[in-house]
């Protein structure tokens, strides 16, 4: 299990390759990458992600450990960035390795659902009109109930 919180960009191709080639007897590798898109109203210049340094790493590790305890996983990778990002930048990625694909897919979805609303990150979008905090969506909170 590897959990990384960092400001600098990560190399998705390199991370995915390193993760996938680091295991034997894993029949399925699933990766998900979150990318910065435009603000809903358009015209976004940049996004700034604030986080809670003392808590972030622990919260992410707890989520990853829970995934490992629920599904038959060979490994889990979580990388999440903070600081200033622009459209098209990769914010975060998760990767799961399992003997079978169902476990790998489900665990990746579980990780994503929990990262959305249980990891202490807050996004702020800057447009020509000013800056706005991204509001949490009810559906993101509701998504947790399926687990």
């Amino acid at each position, binding site marked *: 299990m590897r959990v990384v919180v960092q400001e600098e960009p990560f190399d998705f191709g390199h991370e995915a390759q390193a993760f996938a080639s680091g295991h034997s007897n894993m029949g399925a590798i699933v990766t998900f990458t*979150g990318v910065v898109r435009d603000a809903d109203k358009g015209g976004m210049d940049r996004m700034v992600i*604030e986080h*809670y340094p*003392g*808590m972030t790493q*622990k*919260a992410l590790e707890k989520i990853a450990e829970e995934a490992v305890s629920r599904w038959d996983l060979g490994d889990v990778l979580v990388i*999440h960035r903070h600081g200033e990002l622009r459209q098209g930048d990769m*914010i*975060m990625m998760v990767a799961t390795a399992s003997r079978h694909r169902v476990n790998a897919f489900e665990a990746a979805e579980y990780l*994503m659902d929990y*990262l*959305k*609303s*249980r*990891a*202490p*990150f*807050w*996004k*702020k979008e800057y447009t020509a009109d000013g800056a706005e*905090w*991204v*509001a*949490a969506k009810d559906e993101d*909170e509701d998504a947790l109930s399926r687990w």
Partner: protein
Amino acid sequence: MDVLYFAWVRERIGIPKEKVETNATTVMQLVEELKTREERYEVAFSDLSALRVAIDQELTDFDAPLEGVREVAFFPPMTGG
């Protein structure tokens, strides 16, 4: 104890962190105490359903006890991922 604020809670209160001496025994009592201080606290804590709280870096509820706690953090619902 240290009290931390993040995102718009930090902006409304105007500081990221402060030391607070309190006899409050629960998070809710601490909130009520802070609200009486100044208007910016009253504004920041006006709708608790829009806030989350962590004690010693673990998410918890507003009725959680404060005994032995070193750090309390207030912030809006998280928007990671």
